[in-house]
């Protein structure tokens, strides 16, 4: 009997696939509404993302609008954090619920788009969408 038991043990050990831990970024997917105009003070912040290589750090960032130049994920993080409305002093330009649109190019690697998304989430913004490719 012990032989059969060991065979069963070996079978299940070999057949078992351990699942790698996975995490996620939640993103709401609202229906498209044609013809609606955003209020001027609630105009989305558009972040252009482009891959410049195959490494995780080979990503270039650009902001659409009259903002100081931002070229890297670190710069984006600093920009988003420094311009966030402070609950104490009410300084800053963007509330946490300010709409932010991440706009990768058609050839941007998924990991680079996700890295930009991660930076925005990490800066505590909550209204984030992945936009049409630029």
């Amino acid at each position, binding site marked *: 009997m012990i032989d059969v*038991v060991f065979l069963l043990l070996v079978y299940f050990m070999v057949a078992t696939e351990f699942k790698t831990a*996975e*995490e*996620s970024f*939640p993103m709401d997917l609202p*229906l498209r509404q044609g013809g609606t105009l955003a209020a001027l003070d609630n105009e989305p912040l558009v972040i252009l993302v482009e891959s410049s290589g195959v490494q995780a750090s080979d990503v270039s960032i650009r902001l659409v609008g009259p903002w100081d130049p931002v070229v890297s994920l670190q710069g984006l993080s600093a920009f988003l954090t420094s311009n966030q409305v402070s609950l104490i002093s009410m300084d800053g330009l963007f509330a946490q619920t300010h709409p932010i649109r991440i706009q990768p*190019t058609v050839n941007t690697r*998924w990991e680079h788009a996700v890295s930009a998304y*991660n930076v925005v989430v*990490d800066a505590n913004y909550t209204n984030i969408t992945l936009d049409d490719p630029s």
Partner: protein
Amino acid sequence: MKRRGKTTSGIHANMTPMIDVTFLLIVFFVVVSQIVDRDTVAMDLPRPDHAASGLPEKAEHVVVNIIPAEDGDIRGFVVAGHELEASALHDVTSIVQTHLQGGAQEVHLRADKTTKYIYIHEVIEAIRAVGSAPRLQLIVSGDER
């Protein structure tokens, strides 16, 4: 009358604890092999630095896998276990819609880190086309646990 020949030792190994442990191991592996999610496809998920991601909620969901090919292109999709060709975006919408109507509350999007964004966007639009504004979970690689 006395027996002839060699005398056998009176010491026997007690097999009972070993069999108990072995059965416990079997039960463990049986249970673990049942909880593996069969809907997911092995791929190299994005792993952002200092990830602000969290564990996916336990809500009922449908998994959309984008199967990678070379140079950031894709071979097709696996949606809730159904294998589809890369051109079958309409079928992606149909299957996701069926699962959402059946009680699923979220859509888990899994894509390889090398996949070009154009393909990801097409799939997101296919999911958006279900018309019920589902909640999307962008799946990334977490820490090894």
